Protein backbone atom coordinates (compact mmCIF):
# COMPACT_ATOMS: atom_id res chain seq x y z
CA UNK A 1 0.00 0.00 0.00
CA UNK A 2 2.99 2.31 0.44
CA UNK A 3 3.01 2.98 -3.28
CA UNK A 4 -0.41 4.53 -3.28
CA UNK A 5 -0.35 6.31 0.07
CA UNK A 6 -1.66 9.85 -0.03
CA UNK A 7 0.60 11.15 2.72
CA UNK A 8 2.67 14.13 1.56
CA UNK A 9 6.20 12.86 1.32
CA UNK A 10 9.61 14.05 0.28
CA UNK A 11 8.61 13.42 -3.32
CA UNK A 12 5.67 15.79 -3.01
CA UNK A 13 7.80 18.51 -1.46
CA UNK A 14 10.61 18.09 -3.98
CA UNK A 15 8.31 18.11 -7.02
CA UNK A 16 6.33 21.04 -5.69
CA UNK A 17 9.52 23.01 -5.00
CA UNK A 18 10.79 22.22 -8.49
CA UNK A 19 7.55 23.36 -10.14
CA UNK A 20 7.40 26.56 -8.12
CA UNK A 21 11.04 27.34 -8.89
CA UNK A 22 10.48 26.71 -12.60
CA UNK A 23 7.46 28.99 -12.56
CA UNK A 24 9.28 31.65 -10.53
CA UNK A 25 12.07 31.78 -13.10
CA UNK A 26 10.01 31.58 -16.29
CA UNK A 27 6.62 32.98 -15.13
CA UNK A 28 5.11 31.43 -18.28
CA UNK A 29 1.85 30.21 -16.83
CA UNK A 30 1.26 33.09 -14.45
CA UNK A 31 1.84 35.80 -17.04
CA UNK A 32 -0.47 34.25 -19.60
CA UNK A 33 -3.13 33.55 -16.96
CA UNK A 34 -2.97 37.13 -15.66
CA UNK A 35 -3.14 38.69 -19.11
CA UNK A 36 -5.96 36.38 -20.13
CA UNK A 37 -8.15 37.17 -17.13
CA UNK A 38 -7.34 40.87 -17.50
CA UNK A 39 -8.69 40.67 -21.05
CA UNK A 40 -11.82 38.91 -19.80
CA UNK A 41 -12.42 41.66 -17.22
CA UNK A 42 -12.02 44.42 -19.79
CA UNK A 43 -14.08 42.74 -22.51
CA UNK A 44 -16.92 41.91 -20.14
CA UNK A 45 -17.04 45.37 -18.62
CA UNK A 46 -17.30 46.88 -22.12
CA UNK A 47 -20.05 44.50 -23.16
CA UNK A 48 -22.16 44.88 -20.00
CA UNK A 49 -21.27 48.27 -18.50
CA UNK A 50 -23.13 47.44 -15.29
CA UNK A 51 -24.02 49.67 -12.37
CA UNK A 52 -23.15 48.57 -8.82
CA UNK A 53 -26.45 46.74 -8.25
CA UNK A 54 -26.34 44.77 -11.50
CA UNK A 55 -22.68 43.93 -11.18
CA UNK A 56 -23.34 42.34 -7.80
CA UNK A 57 -25.73 39.94 -9.55
CA UNK A 58 -23.40 38.99 -12.41
CA UNK A 59 -19.95 39.33 -10.81
CA UNK A 60 -20.00 35.84 -9.26
CA UNK A 61 -20.42 34.19 -12.63
CA UNK A 62 -17.99 36.52 -14.34
CA UNK A 63 -15.16 36.13 -11.85
CA UNK A 64 -15.34 32.34 -11.83
CA UNK A 65 -15.63 31.98 -15.58
CA UNK A 66 -12.54 34.17 -15.95
CA UNK A 67 -10.62 32.11 -13.38
CA UNK A 68 -11.81 28.81 -14.87
CA UNK A 69 -10.58 29.70 -18.34
CA UNK A 70 -7.35 31.11 -16.97
CA UNK A 71 -6.75 27.99 -14.85
CA UNK A 72 -6.90 25.83 -17.97
CA UNK A 73 -3.74 27.60 -19.15
CA UNK A 74 -1.83 26.48 -16.05
CA UNK A 75 -3.38 23.02 -16.09
CA UNK A 76 -2.45 22.39 -19.70
CA UNK A 77 1.25 22.84 -19.09
CA UNK A 78 1.27 20.77 -15.87
CA UNK A 79 2.14 17.48 -17.50
CA UNK A 80 3.16 18.71 -20.94
CA UNK A 81 6.22 20.19 -19.26
CA UNK A 82 7.26 16.72 -18.10
CA UNK A 83 7.15 15.21 -21.58
CA UNK A 84 10.35 16.95 -22.61
CA UNK A 85 13.39 14.71 -22.02
CA UNK A 86 11.00 11.89 -21.01
CA UNK A 87 10.72 13.08 -17.43
CA UNK A 88 7.30 11.45 -17.11
CA UNK A 89 8.72 8.08 -18.15
CA UNK A 90 11.38 8.49 -15.50
CA UNK A 91 8.65 9.12 -12.91
CA UNK A 92 6.87 5.99 -14.06
CA UNK A 93 9.85 3.70 -13.57
CA UNK A 94 10.97 5.35 -10.35
CA UNK A 95 9.74 3.87 -7.05
CA UNK A 96 8.23 7.25 -6.07
CA UNK A 97 4.51 6.88 -5.20
CA UNK A 98 2.26 8.12 -8.01
CA UNK A 99 -0.04 9.95 -5.62
CA UNK A 100 2.79 12.07 -4.19
CA UNK A 101 3.46 13.28 -7.70
CA UNK A 102 -0.24 13.99 -8.22
CA UNK A 103 -0.53 15.92 -4.96
CA UNK A 104 2.56 17.98 -5.83
CA UNK A 105 1.13 18.89 -9.21
CA UNK A 106 -2.32 19.68 -7.81
CA UNK A 107 -0.85 21.81 -5.01
CA UNK A 108 1.36 23.61 -7.53
CA UNK A 109 -1.63 24.47 -9.70
CA UNK A 110 -3.54 25.51 -6.60
CA UNK A 111 -0.77 27.98 -5.71
CA UNK A 112 -0.73 29.41 -9.26
CA UNK A 113 -4.49 29.92 -9.38
CA UNK A 114 -4.59 31.41 -5.87
CA UNK A 115 -1.85 33.89 -6.80
CA UNK A 116 -3.88 34.78 -9.89
CA UNK A 117 -6.99 35.30 -7.78
CA UNK A 118 -5.17 37.48 -5.25
CA UNK A 119 -3.80 39.68 -8.01
CA UNK A 120 -7.03 39.89 -10.02
CA UNK A 121 -9.55 40.48 -7.22
CA UNK A 122 -8.62 44.18 -6.69
CA UNK A 123 -9.09 44.77 -10.42
CA UNK A 124 -12.51 43.13 -10.35
CA UNK A 125 -13.51 45.24 -7.38
CA UNK A 126 -12.34 48.42 -9.14
CA UNK A 127 -13.87 47.78 -12.55
CA UNK A 128 -17.19 46.45 -11.27
CA UNK A 129 -17.55 48.72 -8.22
CA UNK A 130 -18.06 45.67 -6.02
CA UNK A 131 -18.88 45.79 -2.35
CA UNK A 132 -20.11 42.71 -0.51
CA UNK A 133 -23.41 43.16 1.33
CA UNK A 134 -23.10 39.74 3.02
CA UNK A 135 -20.28 38.40 5.23
CA UNK A 136 -17.23 39.05 3.05
CA UNK A 137 -14.90 36.71 4.97
CA UNK A 138 -16.89 33.77 3.61
CA UNK A 139 -15.44 34.53 0.18
CA UNK A 140 -12.11 33.11 1.41
CA UNK A 141 -13.36 29.53 2.06
CA UNK A 142 -15.46 29.69 -1.11
CA UNK A 143 -12.42 30.72 -3.15
CA UNK A 144 -10.17 28.11 -1.54
CA UNK A 145 -12.64 25.24 -1.92
CA UNK A 146 -13.64 26.31 -5.41
CA UNK A 147 -10.06 26.62 -6.60
CA UNK A 148 -9.22 23.19 -5.21
CA UNK A 149 -12.29 21.73 -6.96
CA UNK A 150 -11.04 23.13 -10.27
CA UNK A 151 -7.39 22.16 -9.93
CA UNK A 152 -7.78 18.68 -8.46
CA UNK A 153 -9.98 17.51 -11.33
CA UNK A 154 -8.06 19.67 -13.78
CA UNK A 155 -4.74 18.08 -12.86
CA UNK A 156 -6.28 14.63 -13.22
CA UNK A 157 -7.92 15.36 -16.57
CA UNK A 158 -4.75 17.04 -17.82
CA UNK A 159 -3.00 13.71 -17.26
CA UNK A 160 -5.74 12.02 -19.30
CA UNK A 161 -5.72 14.57 -22.10
CA UNK A 162 -1.96 14.18 -22.37
CA UNK A 163 -2.66 10.94 -24.23
CA UNK A 164 -4.89 12.49 -26.87
CA UNK A 165 -4.53 14.32 -30.13
CA UNK A 166 -4.93 18.12 -29.79
CA UNK A 167 -4.59 17.83 -26.02
CA UNK A 168 -4.94 21.54 -25.31
CA UNK A 169 -8.51 21.50 -26.60
CA UNK A 170 -9.31 18.16 -25.00
CA UNK A 171 -8.73 19.33 -21.41
CA UNK A 172 -11.63 21.82 -21.23
CA UNK A 173 -13.89 19.36 -23.07
CA UNK A 174 -13.28 16.78 -20.34
CA UNK A 175 -13.07 19.16 -17.40
CA UNK A 176 -16.05 21.48 -17.88
CA UNK A 177 -18.91 18.93 -17.88
CA UNK A 178 -17.67 17.31 -14.67
CA UNK A 179 -17.03 20.73 -13.07
CA UNK A 180 -20.60 21.96 -13.57
CA UNK A 181 -21.80 21.33 -9.98
CA UNK A 182 -18.64 22.91 -8.53
CA UNK A 183 -18.99 25.91 -10.81
CA UNK A 184 -22.66 26.27 -9.93
CA UNK A 185 -21.78 26.17 -6.24
CA UNK A 186 -18.94 28.71 -6.55
CA UNK A 187 -20.98 31.13 -8.60
CA UNK A 188 -24.03 30.91 -6.35
CA UNK A 189 -22.02 31.17 -3.14
CA UNK A 190 -20.24 34.28 -4.45
CA UNK A 191 -23.48 35.86 -5.62
CA UNK A 192 -25.14 35.03 -2.29
CA UNK A 193 -22.31 36.72 -0.36
CA UNK A 194 -22.14 39.75 -2.64
CA UNK A 195 -25.87 40.42 -2.62
CA UNK A 196 -26.27 39.39 1.02
CA UNK A 197 -29.79 38.11 0.32
CA UNK A 198 -29.24 34.38 0.82
CA UNK A 199 -26.99 32.21 2.91
CA UNK A 200 -23.96 30.70 1.19
CA UNK A 201 -23.71 27.92 3.76
CA UNK A 202 -25.33 25.23 1.65
CA UNK A 203 -23.06 25.94 -1.31
CA UNK A 204 -19.97 25.75 0.90
CA UNK A 205 -21.12 22.34 2.14
CA UNK A 206 -21.71 21.22 -1.44
CA UNK A 207 -18.26 22.44 -2.50
CA UNK A 208 -16.66 20.59 0.42
CA UNK A 209 -18.49 17.39 -0.57
CA UNK A 210 -17.39 17.81 -4.17
CA UNK A 211 -13.78 18.35 -3.09
CA UNK A 212 -13.72 15.33 -0.80
CA UNK A 213 -15.39 12.98 -3.31
CA UNK A 214 -13.21 13.94 -6.24
CA UNK A 215 -9.94 14.15 -4.29
CA UNK A 216 -10.50 10.56 -3.16
CA UNK A 217 -11.44 9.48 -6.69
CA UNK A 218 -8.33 11.16 -8.13
CA UNK A 219 -6.04 9.52 -5.58
CA UNK A 220 -7.59 6.10 -6.19
CA UNK A 221 -7.39 6.27 -9.98
CA UNK A 222 -4.30 8.37 -10.65
CA UNK A 223 -1.81 5.53 -10.61
CA UNK A 224 -3.75 3.71 -13.33
CA UNK A 225 -3.90 6.83 -15.48
CA UNK A 226 -0.21 7.63 -14.99
CA UNK A 227 0.79 4.16 -16.10
CA UNK A 228 -1.56 4.05 -19.08
CA UNK A 229 0.88 4.71 -21.89
Amino acid at each position, binding site marked *: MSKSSAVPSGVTAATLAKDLRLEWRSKDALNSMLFFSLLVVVVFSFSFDPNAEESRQIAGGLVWVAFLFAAVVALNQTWARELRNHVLDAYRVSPAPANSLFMAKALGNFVFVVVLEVLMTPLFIMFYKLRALGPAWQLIPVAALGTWALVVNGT*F*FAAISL*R*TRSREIMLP*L*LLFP*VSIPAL*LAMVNATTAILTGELSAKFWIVLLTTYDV*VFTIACLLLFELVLNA*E
Partner: protein
Amino acid sequence: MKRVFPILGLLTAVLLSYALYEALVAAPTEQTMGNVQRIFYYHVPSAWTAFLLFFINFVCSIQYLVRPNPVADKLTNWTVIAIAIAACIAAFVIRPLPEGMEPSSVATTGLAIAGLYFLIKKCFSQTRTDALAVVTAEVGVVFCTVVLVTGPLWARPVWGIWWTWDVRLTSTLVLWLIYISYLMLRRFSTSGQTPVLAAALAVFGALDVPLVYFSIWIFRTQHPQPVIGGGGSIDPRMLHVLLINWLAFLFFAGLVCWSRYRLEILQREVEETQALEAMLEPRSRR
Protein backbone atom coordinates in the same frame (compact mmCIF):
# COMPACT_ATOMS: atom_id res chain seq x y z
CA MET B 1 -26.68 -17.41 -31.49
CA LYS B 2 -26.82 -16.31 -35.12
CA ARG B 3 -30.38 -17.51 -35.46
CA VAL B 4 -31.52 -15.65 -32.39
CA PHE B 5 -30.59 -12.31 -33.91
CA PRO B 6 -33.15 -12.19 -36.78
CA ILE B 7 -35.83 -13.57 -34.46
CA LEU B 8 -35.07 -10.83 -31.97
CA GLY B 9 -35.10 -8.30 -34.81
CA LEU B 10 -38.52 -9.47 -35.98
CA LEU B 11 -39.85 -9.45 -32.44
CA THR B 12 -38.55 -5.90 -31.95
CA ALA B 13 -40.21 -4.73 -35.16
CA VAL B 14 -43.54 -6.26 -34.14
CA LEU B 15 -43.30 -4.80 -30.64
CA LEU B 16 -42.37 -1.35 -31.92
CA SER B 17 -45.28 -1.24 -34.35
CA TYR B 18 -47.70 -2.50 -31.70
CA ALA B 19 -46.36 0.12 -29.28
CA LEU B 20 -46.78 2.80 -31.94
CA TYR B 21 -50.40 1.77 -32.47
CA GLU B 22 -51.03 1.73 -28.74
CA ALA B 23 -49.46 5.15 -28.24
CA LEU B 24 -51.15 6.90 -31.17
CA VAL B 25 -54.56 5.19 -31.28
CA ALA B 26 -55.36 3.05 -28.26
CA ALA B 27 -54.13 5.32 -25.47
CA PRO B 28 -56.77 7.73 -24.14
CA THR B 29 -56.34 11.40 -25.06
CA GLU B 30 -55.17 13.53 -22.16
CA GLN B 31 -57.78 16.02 -20.90
CA THR B 32 -55.85 19.29 -20.80
CA MET B 33 -52.89 18.69 -23.11
CA GLY B 34 -54.67 16.75 -25.84
CA ASN B 35 -52.69 14.82 -28.41
CA VAL B 36 -49.44 16.61 -27.56
CA GLN B 37 -49.24 14.41 -24.50
CA ARG B 38 -48.67 11.32 -26.68
CA ILE B 39 -45.01 12.28 -27.11
CA PHE B 40 -44.73 11.17 -23.49
CA TYR B 41 -44.79 7.53 -24.70
CA TYR B 42 -41.51 8.14 -26.53
CA HIS B 43 -39.93 10.62 -24.18
CA VAL B 44 -40.17 8.64 -20.94
CA PRO B 45 -39.17 5.18 -22.28
CA SER B 46 -36.18 6.77 -24.06
CA ALA B 47 -35.13 8.42 -20.82
CA TRP B 48 -35.40 5.19 -18.82
CA THR B 49 -33.51 3.27 -21.50
CA ALA B 50 -30.76 5.92 -21.68
CA PHE B 51 -30.32 5.92 -17.90
CA LEU B 52 -30.18 2.13 -17.83
CA LEU B 53 -27.53 2.10 -20.56
CA PHE B 54 -25.46 4.74 -18.78
CA PHE B 55 -25.69 2.72 -15.61
CA ILE B 56 -24.45 -0.38 -17.45
CA ASN B 57 -21.60 1.75 -18.78
CA PHE B 58 -20.70 2.75 -15.22
CA VAL B 59 -20.76 -0.88 -14.00
CA CYS B 60 -18.59 -1.96 -16.94
CA SER B 61 -16.10 0.84 -16.32
CA ILE B 62 -15.78 -0.06 -12.65
CA GLN B 63 -15.27 -3.71 -13.51
CA TYR B 64 -12.72 -2.87 -16.17
CA LEU B 65 -10.69 -0.92 -13.60
CA VAL B 66 -10.95 -3.24 -10.59
CA ARG B 67 -10.88 -6.73 -12.08
CA PRO B 68 -7.12 -6.92 -12.82
CA ASN B 69 -6.48 -6.19 -9.13
CA PRO B 70 -7.78 -9.09 -6.98
CA VAL B 71 -7.94 -7.04 -3.75
CA ALA B 72 -9.88 -4.18 -5.35
CA ASP B 73 -12.09 -6.70 -7.12
CA LYS B 74 -13.03 -8.43 -3.89
CA LEU B 75 -13.56 -5.10 -2.15
CA THR B 76 -15.92 -3.95 -4.91
CA ASN B 77 -17.85 -7.23 -4.79
CA TRP B 78 -18.46 -6.81 -1.10
CA THR B 79 -19.37 -3.14 -1.54
CA VAL B 80 -22.01 -4.09 -4.09
CA ILE B 81 -23.41 -6.78 -1.79
CA ALA B 82 -23.37 -4.30 1.09
CA ILE B 83 -25.30 -1.76 -1.01
CA ALA B 84 -27.95 -4.36 -1.83
CA ILE B 85 -28.31 -5.42 1.83
CA ALA B 86 -28.32 -1.81 3.03
CA ALA B 87 -31.07 -0.94 0.54
CA CYS B 88 -33.18 -3.89 1.71
CA ILE B 89 -32.74 -3.01 5.39
CA ALA B 90 -33.21 0.74 4.86
CA ALA B 91 -36.38 0.12 2.86
CA PHE B 92 -38.14 -1.45 5.83
CA VAL B 93 -36.46 0.36 8.72
CA ILE B 94 -36.31 4.03 7.74
CA ARG B 95 -39.65 5.75 8.34
CA PRO B 96 -40.85 7.89 6.69
CA LEU B 97 -39.23 7.25 3.30
CA PRO B 98 -38.79 10.26 0.99
CA GLU B 99 -41.98 11.09 -0.89
CA GLY B 100 -42.77 8.86 -3.85
CA MET B 101 -40.66 5.93 -2.64
CA GLU B 102 -42.16 2.56 -1.78
CA PRO B 103 -40.25 0.18 0.54
CA SER B 104 -40.54 -2.64 -1.99
CA SER B 105 -39.20 -0.52 -4.85
CA VAL B 106 -36.18 0.60 -2.82
CA ALA B 107 -35.37 -3.01 -1.89
CA THR B 108 -35.88 -4.19 -5.48
CA THR B 109 -33.61 -1.45 -6.81
CA GLY B 110 -30.85 -2.48 -4.39
CA LEU B 111 -31.12 -6.12 -5.39
CA ALA B 112 -31.36 -5.25 -9.10
CA ILE B 113 -28.12 -3.22 -8.90
CA ALA B 114 -26.27 -6.15 -7.34
CA GLY B 115 -27.88 -8.58 -9.79
CA LEU B 116 -26.84 -6.50 -12.80
CA TYR B 117 -23.30 -6.15 -11.44
CA PHE B 118 -22.77 -9.87 -10.99
CA LEU B 119 -24.59 -10.75 -14.22
CA ILE B 120 -22.22 -8.54 -16.23
CA LYS B 121 -19.31 -9.96 -14.29
CA LYS B 122 -20.35 -13.52 -15.10
CA CYS B 123 -21.17 -12.94 -18.78
CA PHE B 124 -18.31 -10.68 -19.87
CA SER B 125 -14.56 -11.07 -19.51
CA GLN B 126 -12.57 -8.06 -18.34
CA THR B 127 -11.59 -6.95 -21.86
CA ARG B 128 -15.15 -7.47 -23.10
CA THR B 129 -16.55 -5.15 -20.41
CA ASP B 130 -14.73 -2.34 -22.18
CA ALA B 131 -16.42 -3.21 -25.48
CA LEU B 132 -19.77 -3.23 -23.69
CA ALA B 133 -18.95 0.15 -22.12
CA VAL B 134 -18.32 1.73 -25.54
CA VAL B 135 -21.51 0.29 -26.95
CA THR B 136 -23.77 1.34 -24.07
CA ALA B 137 -22.30 4.84 -24.05
CA GLU B 138 -22.93 5.28 -27.77
CA VAL B 139 -26.46 3.92 -27.76
CA GLY B 140 -27.20 5.74 -24.49
CA VAL B 141 -26.18 9.06 -26.03
CA VAL B 142 -28.58 8.39 -28.92
CA PHE B 143 -31.50 7.71 -26.56
CA CYS B 144 -30.54 10.67 -24.39
CA THR B 145 -30.59 12.87 -27.52
CA VAL B 146 -34.11 11.62 -28.25
CA VAL B 147 -35.09 12.65 -24.72
CA LEU B 148 -33.56 16.11 -25.10
CA VAL B 149 -35.27 16.65 -28.46
CA THR B 150 -38.74 15.36 -27.57
CA GLY B 151 -38.74 17.24 -24.25
CA PRO B 152 -38.71 20.78 -25.72
CA LEU B 153 -41.14 19.69 -28.46
CA TRP B 154 -43.61 18.84 -25.72
CA ALA B 155 -42.71 21.75 -23.45
CA ARG B 156 -43.30 24.47 -26.04
CA PRO B 157 -47.09 23.93 -26.42
CA VAL B 158 -47.66 22.84 -22.81
CA TRP B 159 -45.47 25.18 -20.73
CA GLY B 160 -45.09 27.84 -23.41
CA ILE B 161 -41.29 27.63 -23.25
CA TRP B 162 -38.77 25.41 -24.98
CA TRP B 163 -36.48 24.94 -22.05
CA THR B 164 -36.31 25.61 -18.31
CA TRP B 165 -33.39 25.00 -15.95
CA ASP B 166 -35.34 22.44 -13.98
CA VAL B 167 -33.69 19.62 -11.99
CA ARG B 168 -34.44 16.81 -14.37
CA LEU B 169 -33.82 18.74 -17.57
CA THR B 170 -30.50 20.10 -16.38
CA SER B 171 -29.30 16.78 -14.93
CA THR B 172 -30.12 15.00 -18.17
CA LEU B 173 -28.33 17.68 -20.16
CA VAL B 174 -25.23 17.43 -17.96
CA LEU B 175 -25.31 13.64 -18.24
CA TRP B 176 -25.48 13.98 -22.00
CA LEU B 177 -22.54 16.41 -21.99
CA ILE B 178 -20.45 14.05 -19.84
CA TYR B 179 -21.06 11.12 -22.16
CA ILE B 180 -20.32 13.21 -25.24
CA SER B 181 -16.98 14.08 -23.68
CA TYR B 182 -16.50 10.36 -22.94
CA LEU B 183 -17.04 9.48 -26.59
CA MET B 184 -14.76 12.33 -27.71
CA LEU B 185 -12.00 11.08 -25.41
CA ARG B 186 -12.27 7.64 -26.98
CA ARG B 187 -12.16 9.14 -30.44
CA PHE B 188 -9.21 11.47 -29.82
CA SER B 189 -7.10 9.22 -27.63
CA THR B 190 -3.75 8.17 -29.03
CA SER B 191 -2.92 5.98 -26.04
CA GLY B 192 -2.77 2.22 -26.31
CA GLN B 193 -4.71 2.15 -23.05
CA THR B 194 -7.70 4.22 -24.04
CA PRO B 195 -10.04 1.87 -22.11
CA VAL B 196 -8.37 2.75 -18.79
CA LEU B 197 -8.60 6.50 -19.44
CA ALA B 198 -12.19 6.25 -20.63
CA ALA B 199 -13.21 4.08 -17.67
CA ALA B 200 -11.68 6.61 -15.26
CA LEU B 201 -13.67 9.38 -16.94
CA ALA B 202 -16.87 7.31 -16.76
CA VAL B 203 -16.37 6.83 -13.01
CA PHE B 204 -15.88 10.59 -12.58
CA GLY B 205 -19.02 11.23 -14.59
CA ALA B 206 -21.07 8.82 -12.49
CA LEU B 207 -19.81 10.43 -9.26
CA ASP B 208 -20.81 13.78 -10.69
CA VAL B 209 -24.43 12.91 -11.42
CA PRO B 210 -25.77 12.91 -7.81
CA LEU B 211 -23.90 16.15 -7.11
CA VAL B 212 -25.41 17.77 -10.19
CA TYR B 213 -28.89 16.59 -9.27
CA PHE B 214 -28.57 17.76 -5.68
CA SER B 215 -27.06 21.15 -6.52
CA ILE B 216 -29.69 22.00 -9.10
CA TRP B 217 -32.47 20.75 -6.88
CA ILE B 218 -31.44 23.29 -4.24
CA PHE B 219 -30.73 25.97 -6.83
CA ARG B 220 -34.26 25.64 -8.17
CA THR B 221 -36.08 25.36 -4.87
CA GLN B 222 -34.54 28.70 -3.96
CA HIS B 223 -35.81 30.20 -7.22
CA PRO B 224 -39.25 28.72 -7.96
CA GLN B 225 -40.02 27.86 -11.56
CA PRO B 226 -43.19 26.77 -13.41
CA VAL B 227 -44.43 23.68 -11.60
CA ILE B 228 -43.74 20.54 -13.56
CA GLY B 229 -45.64 17.30 -13.68
CA GLY B 230 -47.73 17.97 -10.62
CA GLY B 231 -47.05 14.49 -9.29
CA GLY B 232 -50.64 13.31 -9.86
CA SER B 233 -51.45 9.69 -10.53
CA ILE B 234 -51.47 8.30 -14.03
CA ASP B 235 -54.43 6.59 -15.76
CA PRO B 236 -53.87 2.78 -15.70
CA ARG B 237 -54.48 2.57 -19.45
CA MET B 238 -51.79 5.19 -20.03
CA LEU B 239 -49.39 3.34 -17.73
CA HIS B 240 -50.06 0.17 -19.71
CA VAL B 241 -49.19 1.89 -23.00
CA LEU B 242 -46.14 3.46 -21.41
CA LEU B 243 -44.81 0.12 -20.19
CA ILE B 244 -45.42 -1.53 -23.58
CA ASN B 245 -43.50 1.27 -25.21
CA TRP B 246 -40.69 0.86 -22.73
CA LEU B 247 -40.52 -2.86 -23.45
CA ALA B 248 -40.35 -2.15 -27.18
CA PHE B 249 -37.63 0.46 -26.64
CA LEU B 250 -35.64 -1.92 -24.45
CA PHE B 251 -35.80 -4.59 -27.15
CA PHE B 252 -34.75 -2.05 -29.73
CA ALA B 253 -31.86 -0.80 -27.58
CA GLY B 254 -30.81 -4.39 -26.87
CA LEU B 255 -30.85 -5.20 -30.57
CA VAL B 256 -28.78 -2.16 -31.53
CA CYS B 257 -26.35 -2.77 -28.66
CA TRP B 258 -25.94 -6.38 -29.64
CA SER B 259 -25.13 -5.70 -33.28
CA ARG B 260 -22.83 -2.82 -32.33
CA TYR B 261 -21.15 -5.07 -29.77
CA ARG B 262 -20.51 -7.76 -32.37
CA LEU B 263 -19.08 -5.14 -34.70
CA GLU B 264 -16.82 -3.82 -31.93
CA ILE B 265 -15.54 -7.31 -31.10
CA LEU B 266 -14.90 -8.06 -34.80
CA GLN B 267 -13.11 -4.76 -35.21
CA ARG B 268 -10.85 -5.54 -32.27
CA GLU B 269 -10.10 -9.01 -33.63
CA VAL B 270 -9.16 -7.51 -36.99
CA GLU B 271 -6.88 -4.97 -35.31
CA GLU B 272 -5.22 -7.66 -33.21
CA THR B 273 -4.66 -9.86 -36.26
CA GLN B 274 -3.21 -6.96 -38.20
CA ALA B 275 -0.87 -6.12 -35.33
CA LEU B 276 0.19 -9.75 -35.12
CA GLU B 277 0.80 -9.94 -38.86
CA ALA B 278 2.86 -6.78 -38.78
CA MET B 279 4.99 -8.33 -36.08
CA LEU B 280 5.46 -11.61 -37.91
CA GLU B 281 6.04 -10.27 -41.40
CA PRO B 282 9.75 -9.29 -41.21
CA ARG B 283 10.61 -12.72 -39.88
CA SER B 284 8.83 -14.63 -42.63
CA ARG B 285 10.66 -12.58 -45.28
CA ARG B 286 14.00 -13.47 -43.84
